[in-house]
């Protein structure tokens, strides 16, 4: 590696692990995290004594119940880790920020093997009730007052990301002629792929008729445009590249990261409501690599809502601005044996809302050739992974280490 190569190329993903994934598992977030972490450390051919870095997203006290997972102090203490570097937080290039931070820490010599995890217990937290809006449902008594960004949306009942993202989808229908059938292709593709993923939340077949008949959540988005809350933890080990040859499984080389946010950091003031931060993160990814969109063999693009995967298809240059509807039409191009296999484990729509890290985990499985019945044919060598929606976006390009 030349001295002026991007620093993230000093990092590989040497191990991956996932806990049980499911609906209302009733297990604690720390329990799930420890399970995933021990699997990832073993998968990397390491012991916990060799882990000297720890990172997570979004860290302490963030979001609605079941969203944040355990803090790094919780996990450090549960595993009695001796750390040279640790980091947990929610501000940065999406959920990916924890992995990117780990890559930079490894590249800077602050740590050699960083355990990175993301855990959700939203299904258990929501119980038998529905998904909550941000700010809670009201109830009795004096309601809290809001400041910061939420003051601009909550008073108008725009209480959930589904409302904010629906504005993006509607605008894309207006500007680009996007149709609900095209949106539905993302959901149908995820469901087809989930059938070959034993850990997926929804595996029964989904037809376009089923999709179009589903109840509206926030128009034009329906139930199947929204991801499936679940419980589960994903862990990765980010190691220095000189460990790659010793790792028992093929290491996944970090080729480039996309971290830019050049527009306004806002859900409703961003200059282009059809793209938002994905545009900037995608552009900055390609500024850091000699690879091109045509080199990508498999894409794991954030689908917290179906429309976001379409936004990412354009933001990462797989098609032109406004062209993702036509790109996915009919579903062939994005199928497992298509020109750009997309969300091969079912994405979050059918695989479960592991909040970006499920996509990272699957990208590594595909590059390692270990994806079983859903393995993309032809030994994929380059994977693109993207996380986030609205003003939150991060992207990563992974290659099979040689």
């Amino acid at each position, binding site marked *: 590696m030349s001295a002026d190569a991007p620093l993230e190329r000093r990092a590989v993903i040497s191990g991956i692990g996932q806990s049980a994934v499911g609906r209302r598992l009733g297990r604690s977030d720390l329990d799930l995290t420890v399970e995933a972490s021990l699997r990832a450390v073993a998968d990397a051919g390491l012991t916990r004594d060799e882990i000297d870095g720890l990172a997570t997203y979004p860290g302490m006290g963030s979001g609605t119940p079941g969203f944040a997972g355990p803090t790094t102090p919780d996990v450090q203490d549960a595993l009695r880790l001796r750390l040279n570097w640790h980091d947990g937080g929610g501000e940065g290039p999406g959920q990916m920020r924890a992995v990117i931070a780990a890559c930079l820490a490894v590249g800077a010599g602050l740590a050699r093997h960083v355990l990175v995890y993301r855990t959700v217990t939203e299904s258990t937290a929501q119980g038998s009730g529905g998904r909550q809006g941000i700010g809670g449902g009201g109830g009795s008594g004096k309601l809290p*007052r*809001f400041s910061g960004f939420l003051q601009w949306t909550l008073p108008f*009942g725009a209480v959930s990301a589904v409302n904010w993202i629906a*504005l993006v989808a*509607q*605008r894309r229908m207006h500007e680009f002629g996007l149709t609900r059938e095209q949106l539905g292709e993302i959901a149908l593709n995820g469901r087809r792929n989930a059938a070959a993923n034993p850990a997926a939340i929804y595996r029964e077949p989904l037809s376009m008729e089923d999709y179009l008949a589903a109840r509206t*959540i*926030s128009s*034009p988005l329906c139930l199947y445009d929204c991801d499936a809350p679940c419980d589960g933890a994903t862990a990765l080990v980010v190691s220095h590249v000189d460990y790659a040859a010793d790792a028992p499984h093929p290491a996944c080389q970090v080729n480039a990261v996309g971290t830019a946010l050049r527009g306004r950091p806002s859900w*409703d003031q961003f200059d282009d409501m059809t793209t938002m931060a994905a545009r900037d993160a995608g552009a900055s990814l390609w500024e850091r690599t000699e690879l091109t969109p045509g080199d990508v063999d498999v894409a794991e693009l954030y689908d917290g809502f179906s429309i976001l995967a379409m936004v990412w298809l354009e933001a990462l240059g797989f098609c032109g601005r406004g062209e993702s509807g036509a790109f996915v039409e009919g579903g062939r191009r994005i199928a497992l044996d298509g020109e750009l296999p997309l969300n091969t484990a079912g994405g979050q729509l059918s695989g479960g809302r592991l909040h970006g890290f499920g996509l990272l985990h699957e990208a590594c499985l595909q590059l390692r050739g270990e994806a079983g019945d859903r393995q993309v044919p032809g030994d994929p060598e380059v994977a693109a992974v993207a996380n986030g929606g609205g003003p939150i976006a991060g992207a990563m390009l992974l290659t099979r280490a040689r």
Partner: protein
Amino acid sequence: MTASGPPIRLLPRTDGEGGFFWTSGADGRLRFLHCADCGRLAHPPAPRCPSCLSPDVAPRPVSGRATVHSFTVNHQQWIPGADPYVVALVTIDEQPDVRLTTNLVGVDDGEVRIGMPVEVVFEQHEEVFLPLFRPLGEEARPLGEKDSDPTLPPTGGTGDRGPR
């Protein structure tokens, strides 16, 4: 159905930099922070003009006219039994890169279109005057006892808007 708004209003704080915005409707006018040096509006409010960094910024009334940039009809019952309501993103006529997330009221939710011209109408809750928007040039249709006159003082607690 004719749109009104969500069944419960979660309210903003009015003691910070955004305070003037939320209480501005007391005299029926919508205001944004205006820069005396470069003439641009800044939203959300900021300590200096984010465009030219001038400290010479102060609230200034605007026409209250806007254009629908995007919208969504919320059907999810965040509160059980709630009717659908229209959340819109509108651009202010004076400066189209200033947007507000808001509700459209007094319009059938099936008739809302991107590009539709709208005008502000305020809904008071305690000291807060929420800027909502209705189709330009239409008289406010009665939405409930309180909403029929947006300048009336509050008659009840948060979100209590009488029968619809």
